[in-house]
């Protein structure tokens, strides 16, 4: 196992180097620059700022400077916020995190229950309804679902606030503030949960159907165990096992923010900040964020492989 992990770790390095090259050179091809965005700057002042932020250097040189700083954990300086990128990320990631965490929790909890029940009652009316809902969830464009939800729950019914994280003008503190944020969270969490639940429910349903067919389940039934025990103790455990890989793949989503949903709900998370930084071409922030996600993705893939190897030793033999 130790050798396996080391081998996988060694694989990560070229992938990450490749990712950093691609990220840097793609962003350097994007037209426009934060400094050019200010029409009041004179040509000399512009040249001065270019020199100050190193934009006058050739792309290759800039890549190595960026990469060198990256290795020391320095993501650079955000022009738009006039702060280090790591600080900006740290400021906004947590508001993305609470929404992502809440919806991840709900998605998994609902999907396991619904998927497993759906599998045990295969071909029933319940199963048919769930299957239709699953297909519906997988076919909805995220931004459209967001708009519909705002239209009905916020505008027409007025139950929840339409966007933002706190009520404008209100200066709540303590418990009141928490309540305010929770109220604003409901709709974005609802949308993210609805979007994510389809695929996952389907996954658990298929897994469960497959496990129920296996010999050890028949053995359990033949032993005379109650159906409830067979399903929820013997079968469910084995159906949940492969899901740990899937769960690891979800880890980056906890921190990456939901660009579209945050944009629609005006939620001050990292996704919305990314969009904003993109419009003003704040490259250090954009590159830093993209690289951060790439690293998270690679790590979560590794975790998935290791966990799967631990859970199912047959995989490791390869």
């Amino acid at each position, binding site marked *: 196992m130790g050798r396996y992990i080391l081998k996988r770790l060694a694989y990560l390095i070229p992938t990450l180097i490749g990712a950093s090259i691609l990220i840097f050179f793609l962003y350097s091809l994007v037209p426009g620059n934060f400094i050019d965005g200010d029409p009041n700057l004179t040509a000399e002042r512009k040249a001065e700022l270019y020199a100050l932020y190193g934009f006058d250097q050739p792309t290759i040189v800039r890549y190595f400077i960026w990469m060198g700083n990256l290795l020391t954990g320095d993501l650079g300086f955000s022009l738009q916020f006039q702060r280090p990128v790591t600080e900006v990320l740290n400021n906004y990631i947590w508001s993305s995190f609470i929404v992502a965490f809440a919806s991840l929790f709900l998605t998994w909890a609902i999907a396991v229950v619904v998927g497993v029940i759906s599998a045990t009652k295969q071909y029933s009316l319940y199963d048919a309804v769930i299957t239709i809902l699953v297909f519906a969830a997988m076919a909805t464009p995220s931004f459209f679902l967001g*708009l519909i939800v705002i239209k009905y729950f916020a505008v027409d019914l007025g139950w929840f606030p339409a966007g933002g994280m706190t009520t404008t003008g209100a200066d709540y503190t303590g418990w009141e503030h928490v309540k305010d944020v929770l109220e604003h969270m409901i709709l974005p969490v609802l949308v993210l949960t609805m979007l994510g639940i389809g695929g996952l429910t389907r996954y658990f349903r298929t897994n469960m159907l497959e496990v129920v067919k296996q010999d050890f389940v028949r053995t359990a039934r033949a032993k005379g165990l109650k159906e409830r025990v067979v399903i929820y103790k013997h079968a469910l455990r084995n159906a949940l096992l492969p899901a740990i890989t899937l769960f690891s793949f979800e880890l980056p989503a906890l921190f990456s923010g939901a660009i579209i949903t945050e944009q629609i709900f005006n939620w001050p998370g990292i996704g919305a900040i990314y969009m904003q930084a993109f419009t003003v071409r704040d490259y250090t922030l954009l590159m830093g964020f993209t690289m951060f996600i790439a690293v998270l993705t690679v790590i979560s893939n590794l975790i998935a492989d290791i966990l799967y190897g631990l859970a199912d030793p047959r995989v490791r033999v390869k």
Partner: protein
Amino acid sequence: MENIPQIPRQMEPKVEVEGSKSSLWGQVWRRFIKRKMAVVGFLFLTMIFVFSFIGPFFSPYTTMGTNPINAHQPPSSAHWLGTDHLGRDVLTRLMLAGRISLTVGLGAMVLSVSIGGILGILAGYYRGIVDQIVMRIADVLMTLPGLPLLFIMAAIMSEWRVPAEHRMYIVMIMLSLIGWPGLARLIRSQVLSLREREFMLATDALGLRDRRKLLNHLLPNVVPILIVTATLSVGGAILSESVLSYFGLGVVPPTASWGNMINAANSLIDFTNRPWLWIPPGVAIFVTVICINLLGDGLRDAIDPNMKGR
């Protein structure tokens, strides 16, 4: 040997041809029509295609030019889905937008299936250095988050000053650049196991050239899984196109696509008071993608009953 009665020469090939046809695609077809949901999806999808590609010919309105007096009409018997801020008939625009969105979805699918399929087969068959190069590139691309990558490409390509009516081709290219790595990986793993099978050993023994081995023997065995993945990827491409166009990075007005029609919701008055502008295109995307997924799902079960729901 000699005593065994010989089968008449003429009968032999005939039986075999018929047998092979009904045994693979015939069976697939019979399994497919048994899946009601998939057939319903297929029929609806046909209707959506007819609606988008033939519908505009029956519409009394054109979307060229403007008619400000007629602007912002709610749905009525003359304009079933009302009119937009330029007085254009929303129903007619919806049909024309369907042409664009469906074409982008299909085009992106064809491109990514071609790139992913070819690279996947080559990587899986030749292994070694080809495999290393292709798969490392695929790894890197799959490490990067998809949406930012699309934004970057959109920004780079918008610099090329492509005329609005050709923007859809750019969107196709962008989506296929994102879509091919997953496909290549899938095909490669298929090919890796296929190439060890006896029939490939037979092609070795026969001394066939690589081109014939790949095209006549390997490819037909990958086609079933390719068809299923391709079908499902059309839905994904339509969804991605709508996101890009909604944010103004995909197909841009005056060319209508379902995504950029929903853009009307960005104006507060249109959003709250004129839902006929942005709800129909959203519903169109929703229905289309559901049908595509049902069709793809049915095809998968029909083609390979063993990989149900995976």
